[in-house]
């Protein structure tokens, strides 16, 4: 009997483990026979590891030695597709994903950066169809409302996070997750961290306001005209696919977002007083 069992296991191949990551109520299941990888993913994503019956994507992960990836690991991400068949490629991973079935696979180095990049691209593609977008922004929940701070690298997203008041819940210091639920836009926590190297809380709240951030000589809040608000937000949207339909969809969502959420410019000095003009 024992021999029979062993024989069956060999035929079936190595035992696959599943780790499902839920960000913004969108679940992506990673399947891998690599036990170490699965343990790393569980540790890396913490509270974002959730049980989920119907993930939006199911990805088979095969970890390979770095020597199998001869390209520069810092090479630009390339996202391409033919109909629903997507290919994602960077120096440290190669992935395929079918947006119609949700099924896909990735060959990658055993690195959290490769998994992070894959997840960001998949979420951006899934969100574009759900009326949402990823934003290069820090975000927080204060008093039950979310405040979002888009800005380019070096604009102060992590600085704001370090200066945040004690009652602020950090959603992310790097990549904000925005989507419409009913008639309101919500910001969700993400595990996509910047310099703070901390996962956000897996929580959400309706977006009360957006502040495009810039270093300045004093703390000044300036309302923005709709056109400036849209271009300011679009400059910080993370979208990786040169797909005209999806880009139009994201643009449409951003326009609707600006119509529903006040967008302001925030010039600030890097001390805690900045939060007095935000709140």
């Amino acid at each position: 009997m024992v021999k029979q069992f062993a024989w069956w296991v060999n035929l079936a191949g190595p035992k696959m483990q599943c780790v499902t990551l839920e960000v913004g109520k969108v679940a992506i299941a990673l399947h891998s026979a690599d036990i170490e990888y699965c343990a790393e993913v569980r540790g890396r994503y913490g509270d974002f590891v959730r049980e989920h019956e119907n993930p939006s994507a199911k990805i088979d992960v095969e970890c390979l030695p770095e020597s199998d990836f001869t390209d520069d690991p810092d090479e630009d991400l390339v996202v391409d597709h033919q109909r629903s068949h997507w290919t994602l490629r960077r120096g440290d991973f190669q992935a395929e994903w079918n947006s119609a079935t949700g099924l896909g696979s990735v060959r990658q180095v055993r690195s959290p950066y490769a998994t992070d990049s894959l997840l960001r691209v998949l979420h951006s593609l899934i969100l574009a169809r759900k009326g949402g977008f990823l934003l290069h922004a820090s975000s927080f929940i204060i008093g039950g409302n979310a405040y979002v701070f888009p800005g380019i690298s070096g604009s102060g997203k992590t600085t704001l996070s370090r200066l945040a008041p004690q009652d602020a819940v950090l959603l992310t210091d790097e990549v904000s997750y925005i989507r419409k639920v009913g008639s309101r836009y919500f910001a969700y926590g993400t595990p996509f961290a910047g310099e703070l190297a901390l996962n956000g809380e897996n929580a959400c709240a309706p977006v009360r306001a957006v502040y495009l951030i810039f270093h300045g000589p004093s703390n000044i809040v300036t309302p923005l005209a709709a056109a400036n608000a849209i271009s300011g937000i679009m400059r910080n949207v993370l979208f990786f696919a040169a797909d005209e339909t999806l880009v139009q969809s994201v643009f449409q969502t951003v326009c609707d977002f600006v119509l529903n959420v006040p967008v302001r410019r925030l010039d600030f000095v890097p001390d805690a007083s900045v939060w007095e003009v935000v709140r």
Partner: protein
Amino acid sequence: MNDPYVARSTRLGTCTLGGEAIIITPSDSHLYNLNQVATCIWEAADGQSRISEIVEKRICAEFEIDRETALADALEFLTDFSAKGLLLTSEHPVDPAKVAQPFLEDTNG
């Protein structure tokens, strides 16, 4: 064509908020913000009107500007946006199905 029919290309996204049109070309994610006069031409470029009609019925009616100056400015805008592929020109009216429709327009402008 000295006085063509003018139509918005369908290969873009456009909306008007706060009285100003915003256009995106999805192929390169380039954004264009139009001022109020350019927005007026853009919104009127439905493929059923010649540029001279747009100038007379919209620009001259809504802004304090003489016809000659307005037409010269409009033709310059038309040349620029045609070269960018954002506006199409035709000797005949354009099928409305081949004209981009703004997906979102507010009334605050």
